[in-house]
């Protein structure tokens, strides 16, 4: 085990990745501490997958510095990966092998003994609620089951850092909440989590700290609460007047709120007091087809920083 005495398990300084003329990651700086749950947020093409690949020690940087568990990934990639658990966006399971065989064969890549794996596989099947499906081929499992199997596989080597690329995509709400709980427990045991997600509630639930990326750069960094406080208001009023009328009412609404965002399907009004603002809208003679008062979220932070919604 590396870096026992160090609190920082991932350190990136001016981290850069270029593909010919295209800059995928543009000189970013961040640190992740042991036992922390760290999130990377951003739309497709923001550079978060490239960053994940560099942290996973499979893709070499073209500039800057990066250390994982105190080691240089360009020269110690396989040794670092021995202590990483990776849950890729696409499950990448062997569809022809049974559930237990997928876990067992994957564990063998880490040089784990058959005796160790025999017990570990059963633990992981239990963890992923797949014990009854242990003899089913991966191809015969549902999407959610395959996802759970991929997550279990990422834990087979008892990693120090667990990398999760959109971990709950394809899971039903109940399974998502159970998984969040289990990931939280892993974190309590000292496992460092690095997560990318499109789900804002997931980022808020799981991440102690996160970076918002866009066009290869870090737009903001902090805890979910701090980011919301810094970049958004306390509450948001969502109103819909109809697709072709939203633009028409925007100038009037702009005068009532601290700030507004006009989206194709709705208008978002940022304010400290949502209900009061909604009353003002009605008093001004504007009658939206639907309205909603909610608390500010990371989605609003992202919209503020990039001018785009996360899921496009």
């Amino acid at each position: 085990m590396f870096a026992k005495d160090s609190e920082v398990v991932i350190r990136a300084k001016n981290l850069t990745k270029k593909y010919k003329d295209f800059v995928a990651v543009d000189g970013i700086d961040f640190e992740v501490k042991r036992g922390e749950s760290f999130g990377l947020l951003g739309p497709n093409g923001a550079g978060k997958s490239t960053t994940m690949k560099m942290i996973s020690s499979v893709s070499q940087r073209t500039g800057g510095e990066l250390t994982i568990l105190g080691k240089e990934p360009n020269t110690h990639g396989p040794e670092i990966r021995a202590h990483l658990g990776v849950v890729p966006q696409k499950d990448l399971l062997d569809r022809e092998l049974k559930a237990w065989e997928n876990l067992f064969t994957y564990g063998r890549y880490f040089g784990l003994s058959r005796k160790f794996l025999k017990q570990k596989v059963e633990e992981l099947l239990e963890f992923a609620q797949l014990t009854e499906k242990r003899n089913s081929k991966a191809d015969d499992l549902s999407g959610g089951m395959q996802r759970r199997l991929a997550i279990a596989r990422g834990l087979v080597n008892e990693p120090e850092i667990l990398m999760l690329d959109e971990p709950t995509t394809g899971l039903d709400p109940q399974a998502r909440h159970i998984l969040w709980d289990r990931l939280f427990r892993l974190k309590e045991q000292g496992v460092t989590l690095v997560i990318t997600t499109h789900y804002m509630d997931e980022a808020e639930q799981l991440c102690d700290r996160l970076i918002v990326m866009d066009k290869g750069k870090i737009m903001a960094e902090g805890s979910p609460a701090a980011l919301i406080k810094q970049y958004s208001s306390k509450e948001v009023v969502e109103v819909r007047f109809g697709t072709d009328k939203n633009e028409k009412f925007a100038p009037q609404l702009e005068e009532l709120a601290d700030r507004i965002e006009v989206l194709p399907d709705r208008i978002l009004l940022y304010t400290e007091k949502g209900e009061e603002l909604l009353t003002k809208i009605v008093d001004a003679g504007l009658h939206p087809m639907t309205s909603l008062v909610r608390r500010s979220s990371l989605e609003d932070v992202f919209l503020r920083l990039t001018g785009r919604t996360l899921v496009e």
Partner: protein
Amino acid sequence: MAELSYKPGTAVDPKRAVRWGSLRVAEYRFYSMTKWMGGIIAFGLGNPILFLLSVGLGIGALVDANSGGEILGVSYLQFVAPALLASAAIQGVMDEVTFPTLDGFVWDKLFFAINATSVSARQIANGVMIVALGRGLFTTLLYLGILLLFGAVPLASFFPLLFTSMLAGWGWAALMMAITARLENDEGYFAVIGRFVIAPMFLFSGTFYPLEQMPIFLQPIGWILPLWHSTELGRTLSYDYPIEPSMIALHLGYLTLMGVVGMLLTYPKFEERLSR
């Protein structure tokens, strides 16, 4: 979900994990292979056995009846046996370094999952090669057994013949793996290889008649292909077929060079592709 409790980072010994990566890839692929063993045997042996029956025995009977064994000095079956054996080895290894290798990059993308562990890209390539050779060895051994039963090769040449056939298999597999690693998708490429490289290889490598019988301008086709080199070595091991020691060195050297160059072209492409 049940609770999972562990002390992070204590289960794996990174040095041990890194050291045997190629063998672990091979272990996994051999294990996966057991799921379709019947198909592997059929693919590996089917074609060479059909050639043995149709050409070795069928045409052989015709040739032997008309020549009395005088033209080639041995029965026609003995003449074609070393070539058929080498072709069985080449076919056996080729089956592993074409579709299953491309599958690792393009369709199931399992190489990317493997590369996320302590196994390196180079070890994945070596693991695939070990399996290709294992697959080739399996079919070549079976085929050699069949040839022995037919009395087509002498028992004393069992291991030398196995070696020269597998050397050709390795050379070809390495070259094919380097090509496969460069394919972004199949796009009918393997069908083209099958029709315009593998089929001509049988026809232009002195398999069914001495290469010298061909016009001189066609003979270089045989010279560059591994089958001719292995066939020449096999014939000198099987019966009284004298060739110069320098030619033996040339055949062995050419097949070895083909394997080394193939592997050297394979490694960087595996590394580049798996880092995308």
